[in-house]
């Protein structure tokens, strides 16, 4: 294993739940600063793949590498826990249902992990929370609890929470799917801003327009395999596989 690894390097990822093979030998690389969208029908394994990257859903077989380090290294339990906690600090994740901590204000949601894991002082952590919440346009609501925020605001706080760890890679699992249509744009704007700052991102999404406008590459997944991938202008306008065309036929139609 001395060959050069890409920034994100997923090698022969395979995942089964009992007899159900959810990921079938997926290999995928992402360069630093690249933005990759994963699209595909429900149940095709998009979330499973994304959640394998930070080992939230461990692979059955295969390797995940980030910046030259294997994320899912085989180690004895204690060592593995230490290793994976360090790796996860470098990988931000944004969930469909936000998963904000309801017993903490926006400020504490954002500053908790840096304080706890990076030993930031209260002042430094506060300043960090202010910066990150400002970045997502939520500074005014810094002392609000999640229950006092709209869906779009919650998701922006969740993004700030992930960014506060200064991750090398951001994973988005249908970050706007649970939002009312009028709230989608404010979250998309934040993601666009991150894209402009050259954050490396892997985005699972149902929004083809958004994928087309921010992504360098789009992957179409179906039944646990990557059916087709390419730059958005090719994949959306000129897909080569029948399955891709069929899926896009339904979805491009539906969103327009």
């Amino acid at each position: 294993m001395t060959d050069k690894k890409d920034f994100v390097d997923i090698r022969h990822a395979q995942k089964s739940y009992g007899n159900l093979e959810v990921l079938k030998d997926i290999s995928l690389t992402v360069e630093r600063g690249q933005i990759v969208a994963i699209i595909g029908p429900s149940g095709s394994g998009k979330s499973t793949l994304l959640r394998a990257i930070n080992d939230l859903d461990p692979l059955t077989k295969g390797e995940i590498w980030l910046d030259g380090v294997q994320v899912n290294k085989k180690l004895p339990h204690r060592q593995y826990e230490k290793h994976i906690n360090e790796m996860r600090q470098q990988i931000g994740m944004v969930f469909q249902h936000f998963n904000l901590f309801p017993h903490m204000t926006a400020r504490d949601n954002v500053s908790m992990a840096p304080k706890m894991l990076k030993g930031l002082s209260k002042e430094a952590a506060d300043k960090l929370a202010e910066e990150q919440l400002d970045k997502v346009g939520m500074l005014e609501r810094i002392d609000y609890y999640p229950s006092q925020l709209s869906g779009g605001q919650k998701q922006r706080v969740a993004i700030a929470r992930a960014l506060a760890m200064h991750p090398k890679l951001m994973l988005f699992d249908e970050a706007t799917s649970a939002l009312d249509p009028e709230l989608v744009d404010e979250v998309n704007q934040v993601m666009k801003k991150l894209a402009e700052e050259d954050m490396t991102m892997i985005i699972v999404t149902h929004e083809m327009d958004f994928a087309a406008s921010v992504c360098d590459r789009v992957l179409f997944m179906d039944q646990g395999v990557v059916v087709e991938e390419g730059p958005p202008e090719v994949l959306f306008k000129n897909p080569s596989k029948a399955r891709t065309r069929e899926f896009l036929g339904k979805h491009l139609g539906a969103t327009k």
Partner: protein
Amino acid sequence: MDIDLMLKVYPFFLEAAGLTILLSILTAILGLFCGILGVAARLSRFAFIRFLGAAYVSVFRGTPALIQLFILYFGGPQIGIQLDAFEAGVIGLGVNAGAYMTETIRGAIISIDKGQREAARTLGLSNWQAMYKIILPQAARLMVRPLGVNLNMLIKATALVAAISVIELTYTAQRYIGSTYKPFEMFLLAGVLYMIIIYVVGRGVTWLDRKVQIT
């Protein structure tokens, strides 16, 4: 109804109620301690320890508390455990209450959305950090009411130790019946005192439950 008699004996009942309260407090503390241990066992990553936790809960919830007390107090000396009645009462009831509290605490913990743990782990928190910083503060708020129910049951269960001659409320009532032949008045007096204790505790639980809710 012999009100005069009730007024005459009630100071002795008050004293006995004091012992019932002390018994309840000690039992609750031991119960909570056993409950926390029980939950830690039930959520362990080692199957054998999980089994021990589950066995603890099924044994102590699956047999009458009175039998547990009898085994401890009357059967204990046979296997070298010498306890006086009060000690046996506290330990017997406490370990029993702990089995119920184990399930209460565990119920609150597993009812927290799994996305909470995932979000915490994703940030890089360890399993334990996620537990005490994210899961427990939320679960604790959900536990107050059901633990209040456990507490209510536990206070009433202290009446059982009358059967091993601890001079608490119920035993005192029985003793005065022996000399007065007025079971209605004596048990009524004991019942009223139990109700006052339980009412006050219930109000406390309600107050605490309100106080800990997230705004």
